[in-house]
């Protein structure tokens, strides 16, 4: 079967100082998958996403979005950073943060108008946060902040979504709400790539998985490669996980 490749990574190597964080990564992510990136702390999961998004410059290698550089395909990509990467005491409201998702398509100087506001309100509704639209962001709970970040990415109306630990520090209700939205995105033909920590939920949530620990250990459909062998190779200990399928 001929699959369309959404993200193609070749020979990617990234280092901050002397130690490589990512070493010679080759990875092809097919269109329309809901993929988890798993690996221990310091495995380079966030770095991988940030390299694809051109936030971090790699030492070597290339990343392509539908065959072209990120710079050219920016409008096809949306990003949900780690919740802890920003200061939530910043003087602004939930609606305003979601509106930021429209800034990219607006470009320089042009201000968001009614159309952008409408899109932002719809996204807020989708994540169940419409009644919090005028809330100062510091007064939101961790789960609500995560939903706001998700809404901001939804507004970008992209084809490929990158999410850095969207389930971190959220309660079970929010986790369910978020995963339902991710599954909806996949159903609509979008590609969703998620840095994930909870190995127990991988088979339930995702259909594709990449094992990463500085080097790429394995990548493919969850049902084929999510096994003790790959987990042990990635985490370095004899890992046993009960897989519910």
């Amino acid at each position, binding site marked *: 079967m001929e699959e369309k490749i959404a993200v193609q990574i070749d020979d990617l190597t990234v280092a901050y100082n002397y130690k490589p964080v990512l070493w010679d990564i080759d990875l092809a992510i097919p269109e329309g998958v809901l993929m988890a990136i798993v690996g221990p702390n310091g495995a380079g999961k966030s770095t991988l996403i940030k390299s694809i998004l051109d936030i971090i410059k790699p030492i070597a290698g290339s990343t392509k979005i539908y065959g072209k550089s990120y*710079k050219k395909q*920016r409008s096809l990509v949306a990003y949900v950073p780690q919740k802890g990467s*920003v200061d939530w005491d910043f003087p602004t409201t939930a609606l305003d943060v979601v509106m*930021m998702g429209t800034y*990219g398509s607006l470009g*320089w100087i042009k201000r968001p108008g009614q159309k952008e506001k409408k899109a932002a309100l719809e996204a807020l509704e989708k994540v169940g946060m419409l009644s919090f639209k005028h809330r*100062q962001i510091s007064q939101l709970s961790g789960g609500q902040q995560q939903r706001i970040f998700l809404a901001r990415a939804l507004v970008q109306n992209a084809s490929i979504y990158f999410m850095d630990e969207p389930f971190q520090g959220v309660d079970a209700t929010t986790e369910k709400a978020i995963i339902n939205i991710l599954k909806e995105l996949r159903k609509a033909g979008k590609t969703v790539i998620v840095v994930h920590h909870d190995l127990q939920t991988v088979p339930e949530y995702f259909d594709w998985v990449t094992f990463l620990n500085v080097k790429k250990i394995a990548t493919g459909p969850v049902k084929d490669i999510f096994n003790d062998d790959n987990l042990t190779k990635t985490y370095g200990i004899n890992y046993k996980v009960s897989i519910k399928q």
Partner: protein
Amino acid sequence: MDLQEYIELVFTDYTLRTITLGTAILGAICGMLGSFAVLRKQSLLGDAISHAALPGIAIAFLVLGTKNSAAFLLGALVSGLIGTFWIRGITRKTHLKSDTALGLILSLFFGFGMLLLTYIQKQPNANQAGLESYLFGQAATLLESDVWLMIIVTGISLVILLLFWKELKLLLFDPEYTKTLGFNTKFLDILITTFIVVAIVLGLQTVGVVLMSAMLLAPAAAARQWTNNLAIMVILAAIFGASSGVLGTAISASHNNLSTGPVIVLVAGAFVLISFVFSPGRGLLFREIRFRKNRNDLQLHKTLSFMYDIASTHEDISHPHAIKILNNFQGFTRKSLQKLEDKNYIKVHGNMWSMTASGFHTAANLYNQLVKAEEDE
């Protein structure tokens, strides 16, 4: 000169009007741009830049041999910018953290500047008198041309601020996300930093190298207390800054010409203090009041619900009970009983209490109400 005399003089006396206008505009632009420094968590950068400007002023004097405020501005600008780039270079190229880099550059440049100043003072050049006023500022030396320069710079930065408002807000909140959307963060970064440097350099003559950073940070810190909206914060900071300038000048002029810079900074400090204590949302006073009120209410409610548990064991809810049986409940006092009676939740007769229908009803719905109030907030 007393304050009333001063107010009359502001409208008639040319010099005083120039100085007042100058400090007001300076305060406004510093407040405006200071908001960005505070929100970028680069508060100390202002301090480093202003100290780093001193050698530039001294070198400008050494080169020209006369005092020329335009040349001083240029010298301060160049050495301030060099200091800034070194700080950025140190943090990027070494393992040192930014506080170390800031402290290092601040002291080195200031030390070098002081060295040059003392060297200049030893020179037989009569022109050097007054150069040390750049340490603590001297508003009296402001000329009309200086004020015009401030107006122009403020106007330009205002236009740029409005033009790139969306991008700057995005950068302040989430720099990496800004980058993924395709905005040139390096350009925006340099834009903000340059304006902060320019504001500092403009203020050196009035407020001085040592105190300049307070001028930048105090109005912004005060403004943050009153609002959760970035635009309002920037406007408020400008107003606080301008008021500090005007009030500071007035106080210093009406009190035997106290040094203007320190007075302006102290007035700005007073704004911060007042804001920290009295602002409604984040202020210490109202927070304490809210905290106490909530605790008292909660205590009262706990007492009421304890009584409710007792009363509901009886068929007649208003059956009298001995006050003594409340004794094993922590947190109950005579005063809280009195309060409950005032609210008509209970009735007290001597050593007995009984619940009213309204008290019973309130207690029954208490938990639901508390949960609902939380949701509504």
